[in-house]
């Protein structure tokens, strides 16, 4: 793979920017930007509404993308793919339409301590409303969730398990297959948050046998504001709608309404069609490069970053030592220096990293820290980006060194 050629597809990467915040959102290739432009120039109309050819074309593009996504994650049925705003909305949909209705007093919800707030806060609400209990699987010294932890926290009382396939803070790849199999044995359903994993690894929902899987388009080259909820058809069919309005109905009477079948039941109101079109183009782009190549390109840079950063004695790294369990996120701190200061100094050198609590306050609190710097990688990053990061860290450390020493 010619990395220079690939980088040329990303207009924003021209110049000397080292963009190391793909865990927050990835940059977009021309192909995605063009697909959206083309939709508005040639095909824009409201899908599912018009009897004229333009609307039918818009409907086709919208629905073809649904089929494309179903194939992409190997869903059995295309109507198991629901479009949402993002992974957060997908998780809220599950919490409201499944959690609130299915859970009872003394039932248990289990999530990992490394979940994003979006896979914690909705469950707090469900737990409070239903009298169920929210329990956590904690990490060990290697920033991983051990099998023992899984087996001690998921019990016969557990009804819902929520797990991030990859942590947005630690980069840890969780053993979701093991969690799913174990949870099913105990009679619980499992929700996989794939927001940080699907940009980097092939996902097969039938092989995983997860009950729900959610992700955001914008972390995988697509535009902001488009997300996906995958759910097993038999479960989605039993669930009540989340948002009410146009297109999710069958017959509306003055006092009663019957709902449309899947997937429309969960897609009220005019949807983010440009987002869907953009997501389709993003998937085409990912498939054209191929996950195998993505993995190879990323891993080379990630390996280099791990090696370079671990040589800086003034840095704390929050990273599993087991390389095979680590995806493209590295959290770190310069000892004694606040991450916001480090991020500002890196910014002055055109190196973009995130600093803060990464929407994972419970995780950081459990680790005894308030915040970290986070460099996150995608296939368009290079060793040169890592060198810029390291040079920036050297600069930051030098600026603070004599004050830390006191």
């Amino acid at each position, binding site marked *: 793979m010619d990395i220079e050629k690939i980088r040329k597809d990303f207009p924003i990467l021209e110049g000397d920017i080292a963009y190391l915040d793909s865990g927050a959102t990835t940059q977009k290739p021309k192909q995605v930007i063009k697909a959206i432009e083309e939709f508005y120039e040639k095909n824009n109309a409201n899908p599912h509404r018009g009897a004229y050819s333009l609307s039918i074309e818009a409907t086709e593009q919208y629905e073809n993308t649904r089929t494309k996504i179903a194939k992409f994650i190997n869903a059995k049925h295309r109507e198991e793919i629901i479009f949402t705003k993002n992974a957060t909305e997908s998780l809220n949909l599950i919490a409201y339409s499944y959690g609130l209705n299915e859970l009872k007093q003394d039932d248990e919800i289990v999530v990992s301590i490394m979940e994003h707030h979006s896979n914690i806060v909705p469950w707090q609400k469900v737990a409070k409303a239903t009298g169920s209990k929210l329990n956590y699987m904690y990490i060990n010294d290697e920033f991983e969730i051990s099998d023992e932890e899984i087996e001690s926290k998921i019990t016969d009382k557990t009804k819902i398990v929520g797990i991030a396939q990859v942590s947005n803070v630690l980069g840890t790849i969780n053993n979701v297959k093991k969690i799913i199999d174990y949870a099913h044995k105990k009679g619980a359903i499992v929700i996989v948050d794939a927001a940080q994993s699907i940009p980097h690894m092939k996902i097969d929902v039938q092989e995983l046998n997860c009950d729900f899987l959610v992700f955001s388009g914008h972390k995988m080259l697509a535009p902001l504001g488009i997300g996906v909820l995958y759910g097993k058809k038999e479960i989605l069919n039993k669930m009540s709608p989340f948002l009410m309005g146009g297109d999710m109905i069958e017959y509306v009477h003055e006092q009663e309404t019957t709902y449309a079948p899947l997937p429309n039941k969960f897609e009220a109101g005019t949807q983010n069609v440009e987002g869907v079109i953009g997501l389709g183009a993003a998937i085409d782009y990912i498939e054209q490069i191929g996950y195998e190549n993505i993995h190879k390109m990323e891993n080379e840079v990630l390996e280099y970053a791990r090696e370079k950063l671990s040589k800086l004695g003034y840095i704390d790294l929050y990273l599993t030592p087991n390389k095979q369990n680590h995806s493209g996120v590295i959290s770190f701190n310069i000892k004694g*220096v*606040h*991450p*916001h*200061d480090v*991020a*500002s*100094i890196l*910014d*002055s050198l055109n190196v973009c990293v995130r*600093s*803060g*609590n990464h929407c994972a*306050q419970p995780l*950081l609190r459990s680790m005894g820290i*308030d*915040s970290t710097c986070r460099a996150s990688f995608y296939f368009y990053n290079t060793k040169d980006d890592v060198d810029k990061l390291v040079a920036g860290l050297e600069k930051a450390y030098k*600026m*603070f060194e004599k*004050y*830390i020493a*006191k």
Partner: protein
Amino acid sequence: MDELNQMYNELIMEHSMNSYNKKKLDRCDYCELGHNPNCGDEIEIEVKLNGNIIEDMAFTGHGCAISQASTSIMIDTLKGKTVEEAKEIIETFIGMIKRETTSEEELQKLEDAIAFRNISNMPARVKCALLAWHTIEDILNKK
């Protein structure tokens, strides 16, 4: 680049990393926690009054260099002032950061706190510089 060195200057670094104002008072009349949930910064400001005069102030907590230094320098500036004078200085400081107050004469009242004048060139850090000032503003308004 220059902006960065201007901001992380000797005065600000000293105040942020080794502040003599970072301690607990033996007694305080007012005590308020200020926090920035986005970055996790938390500072607690203590105020001891003598009549209408701010006799002593101190702070504890954690945060970035900008928020720590801003807190410490604010304490230096406000200590010994009357509550009314302090309120005026706070208003001037917030006005300076928002680029609404530009009169040099007015800005001189800020003493060392004028060092944060250029923080508006680093928009991501404005809230760090303002945290302590909003917190003390709340304290004095409650009085």
